């Protein structure tokens, strides 16, 4: 179970890392911000899987903070880009 969940975390990380291609390609700044959002959500998924795989429930708090900060970052991007 723990090995399977760790492998799942690696798969999730590789999948969203592919999304970083959009940061290089993306014609607009919104595309690059969306790729960063994907990385944030994928990072939350990786943290959740690793928390259960290692039995360390403190990682759930890190995932919670990451979720909040990702929302703040996106809102700050829109606010800064509006000017």
């Amino acid at each position, binding site marked *: 179970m723990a090995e399977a969940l760790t492998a799942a975390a690696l798969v999730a990380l590789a999948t969203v890392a592919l*999304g970083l291609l959009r940061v290089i390609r993306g014609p607009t700044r919104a*595309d690059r911000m969306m790729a960063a959002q994907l990385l944030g959500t994928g990072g939350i998924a990786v943290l959740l899987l690793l928390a*259960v795989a290692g039995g360390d429930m403190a990682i759930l708090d890190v995932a919670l903070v990451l*979720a909040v900060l990702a929302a703040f970052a*996106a809102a700050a991007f829109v606010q800064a880009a509006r000017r």
Partner: protein
Amino acid sequence: MSAAFTLVFVAAGLLFLAAGTAGLLRFPDAATRLHALTKADGLGLGLIVIGLLPQMPGITAALKLLAIWGLVLLAGATIGPLIARHATEREP
């Protein structure tokens, strides 16, 4: 029994995360990419959360998992229109 449940839902969640990434890379427009991002990510993360719920040691950790999922859904619903408006306003 709960191990099979967890693995099935986590695999389904990973599938939707991959679909969201594929959409982000292959869709032609910023608005369609945004659609793929918010819906697929919310669903993928939600399936992973549902899969991990039986493995939680107590009610507090399970509630924390659901709070994380709710936060990501709310963030997607709030940020989606903001980014879409920015993307369509600045279209050259």
